[in-house]
């Protein structure tokens, strides 16, 4: 019998694989940023699945805290990546105008 922890752990690995695949293969940078976010969610899901101890039992709080940290780090990285991309497009437009 598949328990929730196993189901969601494997789902996390599946999502991470999908994200990894698209991160490597996509060309458009916005799509790659999106893909790497999904890869991150997949890894976080493994942590949260591990923390789950079954219904009615308090889950392990440590992975929850780790994932919270991970979410903030991910959004920081996303913001930096998008700003770099924005700058790149600005410079591209300038050089096209010349």
């Amino acid at each position, binding site marked *: 019998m598949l328990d929730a922890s196993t189901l969601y752990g494997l789902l996390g690995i599946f999502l991470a694989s999908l994200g990894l695949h698209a991160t490597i293969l996509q060309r458009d940078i916005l799509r790659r*940023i*999106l893909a790497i976010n999904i890869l991150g969610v997949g890894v976080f899901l493994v942590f949260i699945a591990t923390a789950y101890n079954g219904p009615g039992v308090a889950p392990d709080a440590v992975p929850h805290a780790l994932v919270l940290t991970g979410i903030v780090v991910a959004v920081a990285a996303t913001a930096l990546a998008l700003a770099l991309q*924005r700058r790149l497009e600005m410079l591209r437009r300038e050089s096209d105008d010349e």
Partner: protein
Amino acid sequence: MTPIILLDTLLAIILLVLAVVALHSENLRQSIFVFIVFGLVTALVWARLGAPDVALAEAAIGSGIAGALLLAALRDRQPGCEHIEPRPSWQVLTVTYLVIGVGLTASWAFLDAQASRSGPAIGEMVQAELAHSGVSNPVTAVLLNFRAYDTLLELAVLFAALIGVMALGPERSAPQAAGPLVSHFVAWLTPLLILAAGYLLWVGAHAPGGAFQAGALLAAGGIIVRLSGKSGIFPKGAWLRVLAASGYGVFLFVGLAVMAGDNAFLQYPSDWAGSLILLIEIFATLSIAASLLLVYLGGYPNAWMEDKESQHA
């Protein structure tokens, strides 16, 4: 088949479908909207797995703020630059097989790890020491006491991203003022959001919530205010700089100050732990909100310096 497994399977399928659509939809705008929905469903999964703190953060940051960032990036994009040649099929095939291999190996390892799980997890130590941490929400205890150092560095990561974004050209121009209905709604919603953020911050000590969720909520309020064309109410100049840096600054000062009493770095005296954690969280909330709002601007914020320098930036 218990009903809960049915629900789990359904959630898993929805999540997978959303991920595939977000990753491979032809239309980038659609991809981003589906990604935002993906974030919200992920938050449901966190709630289902007994992680309400993470669910709140995911909905506010992973889906909300990240979605706003992506949408803003999409709006900046000039039409016509999306034409990109597809990759040769040998590359696609190689990567696909490689990723399948990695995924299967990781699944096998995960199953093995679950089966062979040995010894008490540190989660049990958390429960045992919770009473000495100064708060009763175990996630807050881990974030701000047991593993406070991680959180300190994480605030530094956010700060690094902020300074990095600032070096990349001018900020996005503010949108023109929205219609009367929206302005009215924003005027009504903003105090409510501030109230909700304050509540989340305070409640984090003993129930789901805390600095990150509160900060993200404040930042979301800030983004809405900015989108409605009223940026005048935000702090400027030195105040803004202090605010952005205060998150890890206050944390660091507290961490060092407690060493005066012959303690380790970040070892709060147990009588003071609750108050010190609240102090750190207040500044973390404000600084997270300021940082997230500033990175949303996508470049050098005009408000960072109040003098001539900012005009050329």
